[in-house]
């Protein structure tokens, strides 16, 4: 019988999303920036995602490095984001950055907020 080991929950970023952040940070005049991701109260369903280009983490942030980008997440947001994959969907029909969050039980009609 094959046993699969449980994977530790973390936040991941796809290669496409990481590449786009590098391009975007250049365009924004902040080359080499990293990404602060988080959650804040509000939005129709209770919580909305936040994304900011930053240089350094805060003292208590969790730091995750993938595809040449560092993600900084505050401890409380991490509880609601563990297991999330940050993806990027470009092009004319693209949605931009998408949080594929397994903790989200419901999302609002426009998809920008969620509840757990």
């Amino acid at each position: 019988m094959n046993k699969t080991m449980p994977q530790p929950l973390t936040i991941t970023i796809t290669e496409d999303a990481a590449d786009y952040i590098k391009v975007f940070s250049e365009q924004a005049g902040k080359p080499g920036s990293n990404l602060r991701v988080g959650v804040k109260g509000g939005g129709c369903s209770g919580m909305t995602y936040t994304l900011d280009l930053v240089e350094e983490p805060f003292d208590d942030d969790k730091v995750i490095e993938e595809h040449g980008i560092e993600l900084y997440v505050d401890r409380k947001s991490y509880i609601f984001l563990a297991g999330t994959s940050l993806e990027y969907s470009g092009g004319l029909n693209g949605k931009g950055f998408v949080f594929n969050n397994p903790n989200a039980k419901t999302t609002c009609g426009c998809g920008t907020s969620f509840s757990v």
Partner: protein
Amino acid sequence: MALAESKNSRLIQISELESATLHAALIDRSDVGRLRVSGDDAADLLNRLSTNNLEHLTPTQGMGTVLTNNKGRIIDLLSVIPLANSLLILTSPGRQQQVADWIEFYTFVEDVTSNDITDDTAMIAIVGPKSAEAVQKALGIDVDDLELYAPIMVDSFDGASLVRTDHFNLPTFEFIVSTEKKDKAISAFDQHNVAQASSSTAENLRISMAVPSATGELTEDFNPLEAGLRPHISFNKICYIGQEVVSRLNAYEKVQKHLVKLEWKTEDAVPAPGTPLTVDGKNVGQLTSVGDADNGLGYALGYVRKANVETGTSILAQSEDGEVALTVTGLSGQG
């Protein structure tokens, strides 16, 4: 003897109720929850959690707003009042911890701190058409032009706050003082013949003036549109928790029931809160608050299906002593 005492107590209550509705009366509302919420992000966070547009808060102008859950149901009705370096939030009696917990849950990296000051302060309401005159006489402050939720400091009471809320759908001034100054505050009004009304009179006044309360109307069973809280809802603000549901109910006119004022004749039996309401044998709602009988009439509040909320509609409630015929006398939130 007991009958005489009961009659006397009723007469006193009627006189207290008349004081509030015709003159001015003092009501001890110290059981109302009081939170001092401070921090640079306090107003922004509350704006993301509640129905009114708190972007319009100014250092001198507060407002009422409703905390709702993600189903658009009522957590609590709040009065948000700006003070020098913080916001004073009035919650329903006993709800302050729940509201503080709700704010705490949705605080991530924001600079927001809540302190429960309910036990450190007292709150007395001066209620009635002549309440501004009573405040002028007792505190020496002209409040004729004081706007709703705009606080003023009362220096003679060491920085106590006075704010007009019209909580009872009558001119209502809330005087918030330290607990040590409570007796002095009551005495200041007593000296000008503003008598203190009992808690049962206050409850009868609330019900007769169709003011929703956490004891029956402001619960997670109902949404703010059903409860008549439309004046505390902005339909053109940023997203808040529950907005999608509240906005859709409003835009598509899908509100199914409304909080209504009801009256019944006191010769009838007394119905109890929670009693189902029927029309032609069909369930149309439920009673949520029932007042004592006064001047031959009893007052009650209840949620009733929108097809049956027209003024004058007759509705039946079943009580232990038989059927009670009630009449709808208006919607809550519409004066």
